[in-house]
């Protein structure tokens, strides 16, 4: 049975955000084409192979997962799976699948498709699934409506359930079996079970989707179609919204500073709900191979030198919260406030640095570092600018080194050619999916967004391994609470703030932000005014 989940939603903090009421008295209007701004065109659009928000943004309307996230209890909405249950020994997980579902080419959806995807796609090729499903041995399909995942080692049912929205997209077996999945044309010409069908992609210009008239949740979707206009330039997106050429821009595609101005315009609303399920963190990544930084007092000093409120107010314009540990507050099942924190206290920082045997030199500098901010978010670059000043104030001289994404990836995660870096990992509904990997030791170089810091703690590794295998949810939660405490004590990396994104949309668009991963869910409930 899907587990209960307490839902914590912070009230909108900014004065200019217009909250959307979750249920409107009005009837959804059927028809209209929603025009949305897109800024990337992934080379592989198949979410069964590539679990990333950039892919989901377009593909999740065409290809559905087994379940989607929901606000409140039980926290999940059935999609292709109606119900699920883990076995007592944790070695199998039974899925009860939906009836009467057809793929866009008319063929029926059955458990055989789930079995194929799990074994051949998610486990073998998917970026996240390769690690997640490493112990998946087989998938039994006793009948077309039932699939049983069987694992070589126990997997907590809670963990698998948490992974359902992001890691379990289902594509037709009959189109992929016997082919080389990575080279299959249906990685671009998507075929799935979703409320929208893929029509065409004009590279550099747009993606076009149209209503699936045979959708299993008919009469939905309300929209006739969706068009994703490729607009890589953010200034162009803001202007397109103003000119009415685009109805909606998600993932803070409009620069934060422009949002205030846009929100004041009639006919445009700024919505900050709908991203809690994909909360990001801004972290200061630390290279422990550097002698000074290997000392935990120095790391704590750096934490004390940072004022998270400045980052929240000035860099995120209020659309962030100071981070307490690597698990965001939204996930109340695991997050604990009971862990060491390092409030902004430059004097304490200086005292710690002195204690660590790193006094200020004649020119006021204790030691110098190279700081590499991640180039892909404006906010991480600005965090770099801020951190440089914050460190200067306590006597650490930082030189900013900015590279493009490929260069940054290589420098930080492969060559380890950095002292400090600014990262932006994402939390995916369970610490075991993409969070504990930031603390796990023994990883080979070249693995992005992982512990490449030269730090390893056997106690931490043991905690992580146990928690990933513990079947009882209450025990698991306790283990992750201990994980957070250890992480905060040792501070191998410093979580600074947690942030989500904003959607800017015309007030004609309704059914926005109705689940915690709205932008990357299927938009069957979205509609346009007449």
């Amino acid at each position, binding site marked *: 049975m899907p587990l209960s989940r307490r839902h914590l939603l912070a009230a909108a903090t900014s004065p200019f955000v217009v909250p959307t009421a979750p249920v409107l008295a009005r009837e959804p209007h059927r028809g209209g084409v929603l025009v949305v701004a897109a800024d990337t065109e992934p080379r592989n659009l198949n979410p069964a192979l590539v679990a990333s928000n950039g892919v989901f943004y377009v593909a999740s309307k065409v290809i559905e997962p087994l379940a989607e996230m929901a606000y409140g209890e039980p926290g999940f909405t059935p999609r292709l799976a109606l119900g699920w249950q883990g076995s007592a020994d944790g070695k199998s997980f039974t899925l009860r699948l939906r009836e009467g579902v057809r793929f866009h080419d008319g063929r029926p959806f059955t458990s055989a498709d789930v079995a194929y995807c799990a074994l051949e796609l998610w486990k073998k090729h998917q970026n996240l699934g390769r690690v997640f499903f490493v112990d998946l041995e087989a998938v039994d399909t006793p009948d077309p409506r039932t699939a049983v995942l069987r694992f070589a080692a126990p997997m907590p049912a809670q963990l698998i359930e948490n992974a359902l929205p992001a890691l379990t997209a289902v594509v037709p077996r009959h189109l992929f079996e016997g082919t080389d999945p990575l080279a299959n044309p249906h990685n671009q010409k998507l075929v799935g079970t979703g409320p929208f069908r893929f029509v065409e992609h004009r590279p550099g210009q747009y993606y076009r989707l149209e209503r699936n008239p045979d959708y299993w949740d008919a009469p939905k979707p309300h929209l006739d179609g969706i068009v994703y206009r490729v607009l890589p330039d*953010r*200034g162009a997106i*803001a202007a397109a919204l103003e000119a009415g050429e685009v109805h909606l821009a998600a993932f803070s595609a409009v*620069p*934060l*500073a*422009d949002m*205030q*101005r846009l929100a004041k315009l009639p006919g445009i609303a700024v919505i900050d709900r709908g991203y809690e399920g994909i909360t990001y963190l801004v972290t200061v990544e630390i290279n422990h191979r550097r002698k000074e930084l290997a000392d935990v007092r120095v790391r704590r000093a750096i934490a004390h030198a940072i004022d998270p409120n*400045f980052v929240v107010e*000035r*860099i995120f314009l209020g659309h962030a919260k100071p981070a307490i540990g690597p698990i965001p507050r939204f996930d109340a099942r695991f997050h604990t406030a009971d862990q060491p924190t390092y409030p902004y206290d430059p004097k304490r920082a200086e005292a710690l640095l002195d204690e660590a045997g790193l006094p200020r030199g004649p020119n006021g500098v204790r030691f110098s570092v190279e700081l590499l*901010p991640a*180039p892909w978010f*404006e906010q991480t*670059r*600005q965090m*770099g*600018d*801020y951190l*440089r*000043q914050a460190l200067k104030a306590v006597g650490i001289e930082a*030189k*900013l*080194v*900015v*590279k*493009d994404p490929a*260069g940054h990836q290589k420098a930080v995660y492969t060559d380890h050619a950095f002292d400090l870096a600014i990262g932006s990992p994402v939390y995916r509904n369970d610490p075991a999916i993409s969070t504990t990997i930031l603390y796990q030791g023994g990883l080979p170089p070249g693995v992005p967004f992982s512990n490449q810091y030269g730090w390893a703690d056997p106690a931490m590794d043991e905690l992580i391994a146990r928690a990933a295998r513990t079947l009882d949810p209450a025990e698991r939660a306790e283990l992750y609470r201990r994980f957070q405490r250890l992480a905060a004590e040792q501070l191998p990396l410093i979580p600074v703030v947690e942030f989500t994104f904003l959607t800017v949309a015309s007030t004609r668009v309704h059914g926005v932000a109705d689940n915690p991963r709205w932008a990357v869910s299927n938009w069957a409930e979205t509609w346009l005014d007449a």
Partner: protein
Amino acid sequence: MTDLLARFARDRAALLAAGVLAGLALAAASAPLLWPLDPEAVGGPPLLRPLGDPAHPLGTDRLGRDVLARLLHGARLSLTVAFAAAFAASVLGSAVGLAAGLAGGRLDELLMRVTDAFQTVPGFLLALAFVSVLGPEARSVVLAIAASAWTGPARLVRAEIASLAGRDFVLAAVVAGLPRREVALRVLLPNALPPVVAYAATSVASAVLIEAALSFLGLADPNRASWGAMIAEGRAVLVSEPWLSILPGLALLLTVLAVNLVGEGLNEALAPRRARP
């Protein structure tokens, strides 16, 4: 030389422009003395309007950094990068163009093919690629811009030489027994230079704008303020806080304008020599 200067001085616009440029350069050089605020200091009140607060006469940006300080320090970077790049490009290009135009035959062919090769790579992309490889420090940006800009002067000089070579006064010099080197340096080169000088002014202008475009794409030296980066940051709030882009843009405009006027003044000053029979 003195009558060159005298001719230059006759063009009042050029004189004024030269003055402005000198003033800018002086301001840039003495920036910390002129206005002692730290251009990188974040934490001040953000998005102050110009002329609002006497402590920040030109306002502040989103992170609270003082705009006036950033403009002055940005002048240093933009001016040094632009002049260094244009100078390097002009010298290198003129040398190549002269050699090609004089030598003719195989050497000319080879040099022109090399020029072709460099020209087929779009200048901005070459700069982008260089900066991706070498990093966004000022040195790499200068190298990158010069690497693509030298072809302009090279072709101009060569074309001028080609068209001058058949002219009477050149043939006269050759017939009079002047050695080739003398002909090249004293007769051809001075007459071939005016377009290069005019182009050099364009080079500086385009260098400043290329640097701005590179910063726009996030490839500026993040440790220093630059006008290009300021415009890039201000671009996000162009409609609500336009001064953040307008001020550095005006600075660019002023500089480029001044450079072009000086260039034209030089052009005029050098021009009369061409008409000599």
